[in-house]
């Protein structure tokens, strides 16, 4: 197989006993995904995973936006590790790609410049009274999902196959930049052909789409999105990717980074508003899934339990293709049948409402 080189870089991933660090963005935009991850590992696969209520944000967004200094973030990271050790774990897994990059960067810095490590040890002690302990392994949660992909395949209720045609679904995988572009060795498959999501897709019956702008950043880029003046640049990146993948007519996009999944989904709506272009075979957008949502669907989870109603792009066409049963009426109903509101439709031409956002110039 030509893609063999995608598997070239491999890394050691622990089989069990994970210390789970959450993602700021995902808790807000994809709360169902983190829950699904814990459920899949804990309940379906029976793996020991600890979701520690004491841990905090890694402050990565602040760091990349130049508001959190290096010493601070190192101390925060050291505290997370200390919490892990105190909880009796040594395999640190992070739900966020930004955090994953931060942890790797901090560990590499400590190794290259031991004085920074000593300084952090002191700060940690002074600030929290905790001791610095290094984890035995660091992995991203998508690495963990990849690691257990075959076990999930064995338990699959659905496969990434169009049940009407029997054809494999065409899946675009998008890897967060900080997964392997900072340290190629930190990602499965390296930076050029990361295999982490492709491995899951292939294990679960789908076809990976390799399109020209596959490597390109989604455009989040922290300051590029956070500062409104730069936001046009941010959306231009997603636009470039969507333009490039469109000819391949993908059935859905799967991403392993909080920002990417959010942007590739939400920008489709913004692009539709700005350019009148809606992507996807039927002009209804290309659904964007997290890998937990993808795994959840494969394992037969209810899509609304997974939080897929939070997406801007409707996922129903995909669910229909996969033959996943769902309650159309219950989509926007929360606990106790309460209406939770719904996002604007991506296909803007179908939208009757006309709204103007008041944005200060």
């Amino acid at each position, binding site marked *: 197989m030509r893609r063999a080189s995608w598997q*070239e870089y491999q890394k050691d991933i622990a089989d069990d006993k994970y210390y789970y660090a959450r993602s700021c963005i995902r808790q807000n935009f994809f709360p169902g995904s983190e829950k699904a991850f814990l459920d899949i590992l804990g309940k379906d696969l029976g793996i020991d995973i600890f979701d520690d209520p004491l841990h905090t944000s890694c402050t990565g967004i602040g760091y990349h936006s130049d508001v959190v200094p290096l010493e601070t973030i190192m101390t925060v990271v050291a505290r997370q590790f200390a919490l892990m050790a105190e909880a009796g774990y040594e395999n640190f897994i992070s739900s966020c790609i930004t955090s994953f990059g931060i942890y790797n960067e901090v560990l590499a810095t400590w190794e290259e410049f031991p004085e920074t490590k000593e300084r952090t040890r002191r700060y940690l002690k002074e600030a929290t009274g905790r001791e610095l302990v290094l984890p035995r392994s660091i992995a991203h949660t998508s690495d963990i999902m990849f690691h257990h992909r075959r076990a999930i395949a064995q338990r699959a209720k659905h496969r990434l196959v169009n049940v009407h045609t029997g054809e494999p679904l065409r899946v675009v995988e998008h890897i967060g930049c900080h997964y392997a572009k900072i340290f190629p060795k930190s990602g499965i498959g390296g930076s*050029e052909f990361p295999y982490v999501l492709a491995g899951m897709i292939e294990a679960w019956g789908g076809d990976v789409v*390799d399109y020209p702008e596959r490597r390109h950043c989604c455009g989040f880029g922290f300051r590029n999105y956070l500062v409104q003046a730069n936001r046009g640049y941010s959306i231009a990146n997603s636009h470039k990717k969507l333009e490039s993948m469109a*000819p391949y007519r993908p059935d859905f996009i799967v991403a392993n980074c909080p920002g990417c999944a959010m942007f590739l989904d939400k920008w489709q709506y913004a692009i539709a508003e700005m350019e009148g272009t809606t992507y996807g075979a039927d002009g209804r957008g290309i659904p964007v899934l997290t890998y937990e949502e993808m795994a959840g669907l494969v394992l037969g989870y209810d899509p609304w339990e997974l939080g897929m109603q939070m997406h801007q792009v409707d996922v129903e066409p995909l669910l229909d293709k996969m033959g996943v049963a769902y309650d159309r009426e219950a989509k926007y109903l929360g606990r106790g049948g309460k209406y939770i509101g719904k996002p604007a439709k991506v296909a803007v031409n179908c939208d009757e409402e006309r709204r103007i956002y008041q944005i200060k110039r």
Partner: protein
Amino acid sequence: MAKRVVIVGGGPAGMQTALELKARGIEPIIVERDVELGGKVRDWHKLFPSFTPASDVLDPIIRGVKSAKIRCFLGQEVRAIAPDGVTLRSEERIHADAVVVATGFTLFDAHRKQEYGYGLYSNVITSVDLERMMNNGRVTLADGSEPRRIAILHCVGSRDEKVCQRHCSKVCCITGVKQAIELKQMFPTADVFNFYMDIRMFGAGYEELYREAQQRYNVHFVRGRISEAAQTINDRIQIKAEDTLTGRPLRMTVDMLVLLVGMNGNRDNESLAASASLNIAPNGFFEPKDSFRGAVCSQREGIFFAGAATAPKSLADTLAEASMTASTVAEYLNHKYNTR
């Protein structure tokens, strides 16, 4: 009795050294890993800067070796070397009065520059593949059609710390110019873009050929290294680079991407050097005794170098150096046996 010299490697350097030693009444023995003499030049179509067919240069040398009845161990690999002979993998030992290391270089494996998708995308080929295609008489895309736009990328596996090859392979620039001209001759309406970091035209006639490629053949030279290549839906290659001379990123789709692969130190250099306590330079090639007066001598008496074993060299340089090696070896033997 004639003095005997074992030459490790049956490429141009080894053969030329053998011929010149033979002419001096010394008995050369060639040990070649391949089953045929000739080395990598055998795959080459035409030589820069004169477009001389490679066989016009190589064939007379091979014929010379055969007609001089020089003993050749073909398909035999040398495991260890010493001033008094070599040991083959078969543990057979060949005694000699001196040894010449003419093991040449190893081509850079283009797979290692993953971002260019060699072996993955159907129309990404190396300069060596292109020569082979030209030798077979037809250059086409994977689907058999003619390329209309071709990119040639310089310095693949040269001057690149990311693949631990810091040195310049010296001959790729002029090869890129030569191949661009050959492609334009084959496909006059095609656009050829050479992406380079520096153009190093060190030899006689090279700069002139470069200018001819630019002005007469309208080859586009873009100063900038391609950062990544990706296959498009119709099997073309989308490439990204910076056009550093305009200071702007540049992107385009080409039908064919030719990677000018560099020369690396021979992959056996480490083990051979270890067997005889020779030095390996940081660039992976053998380190000669000194670069000026002892360029073909090793640190050990009785072991000599010829050709690209010590550094990337053109064929002309290799042949010239082989002559120097032969005379140095002859003088060494003369001195050694007459003063004893």
